């Protein structure tokens, strides 16, 4: 897969539009999902996905394959989101992001029962209430499936910082989750 992606990147970089479209097909849904979970609105996520890929095409020449293409792509998506967030900091407060409702209503649920699903939803809600740095490591590492090293590269921080943030995240979520479990029992 990695070899195929590298070949597609090289071809796209030479102006091969079919290769660029292949890359799009492979990654656009992941990038949309990442941005959709972060920004709280389908329309904004769509715009941000479009902006992300425009930046990708205009700076593809600077991609030197030192990291995986997907990591680089997530870094651009992250920067695009951060720029958008800065510009929309006032409006953002009033947005209530419940991306999981959209998904669980239409997709098969990975959860065994309603109680488990509700618990998961409360967990996602708790993640969205984390500060931006912690939220990002959860989104990239768990939701997007990036490794710790890739998450660090995408965020432009050290791998040790990612680990530290995750430890902090677990401290917060463990408290919340234990409480929820007891409540359900």
């Amino acid at each position: 897969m990695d070899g195929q992606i590298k070949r597609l990147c090289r071809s796209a970089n030479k102006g091969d539009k079919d290769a660029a479209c292949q890359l799009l097909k492979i990654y656009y849904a992941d990038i949309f999902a990442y941005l959709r979970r972060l920004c709280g609105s389908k329309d904004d996520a769509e715009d941000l996905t479009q902006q992300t890929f425009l930046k990708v095409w205009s700076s593809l020449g600077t991609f030197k394959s030192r990291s995986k293409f997907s990591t680089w792509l997530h870094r651009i998506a992250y920067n695009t989101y951060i720029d958008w967030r800065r510009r929309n900091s006032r409006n953002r407060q009033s947005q209530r992001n419940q991306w999981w409702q959209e998904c669980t209503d239409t997709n098969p649920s990975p959860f065994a029962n309603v109680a488990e699903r509700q618990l998961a939803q409360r967990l996602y809600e708790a993640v969205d209430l984390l500060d931006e740095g912690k939220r990002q490591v959860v989104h990239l590492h768990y939701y997007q499936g990036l490794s710790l090293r890739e998450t660090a590269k995408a965020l432009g921080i050290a791998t040790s910082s990612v680990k530290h943030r995750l430890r902090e995240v677990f401290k917060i979520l463990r408290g919340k989750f234990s409480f929820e479990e007891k409540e359900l029992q």
Partner: protein
Amino acid sequence: MNTKDKIEKCLKSAPKPPAPDGLLDKLQADVSAGDIKTQRSALRRWFAPSGGSISPWRVAAAAVIAIAVLLPLSYGATKVVKKYFITFEAEFKYPEDNTVYRTAQTMVMSGDNIKSEEDAKKVLEEFGRLYREGKAEEISPGVWQVILSNGEKFNYGGDPEILGLSEAERKKLLKKQFDEIHELKKAGKFEKTYKPEHDYLVNGIKYRYFEARYVLSDGTVKTLGDSEPVIEEDEHKD
């Protein structure tokens, strides 16, 4: 399974919001709209018209597209209308602080009696003369109308000052304007409006695009595209 494992399992199995219908088509259309390797926004093409990297000079750009139409046009009939594009370009350098201003005005000319490039140029010259004689009427903001010598009405939207001048006269007029703009720029006497949708990257450095609005001493308002580097970022480096 301990609590941490449960949380991890739950996070890893988070549902994926589905991409909306039509998004892939839009993204593919963006790819089709330009050559990938050289794909740059109109702004970047403007900044680096010869391709390659943007020159180290700080560049401010002003571009105007003017529409000129001869009236009356024959409405209601199907016919091919030939259009003529006439472009004036100029560049002014201020080496003391590495600033370059580029400006271009493109007139799109069409009308029943414009059958050649020469016809288009003659109409523009006549418009310029009539404008300077005070015979042009501003029929709506930025749109001027004159009655040509053959009795036809001619509408023009754009900067009327530069029409009907020789190239040397035009450059002299623009130079005077850009000298003043440059002084206003140095003094910070202009209004900035950021247009983040036009931000761009060069060699890993992000440039923030903005429109700078200058009010000249004669009341003329000039809006120029400009940009500034965002120093803090090393973004998009892989």
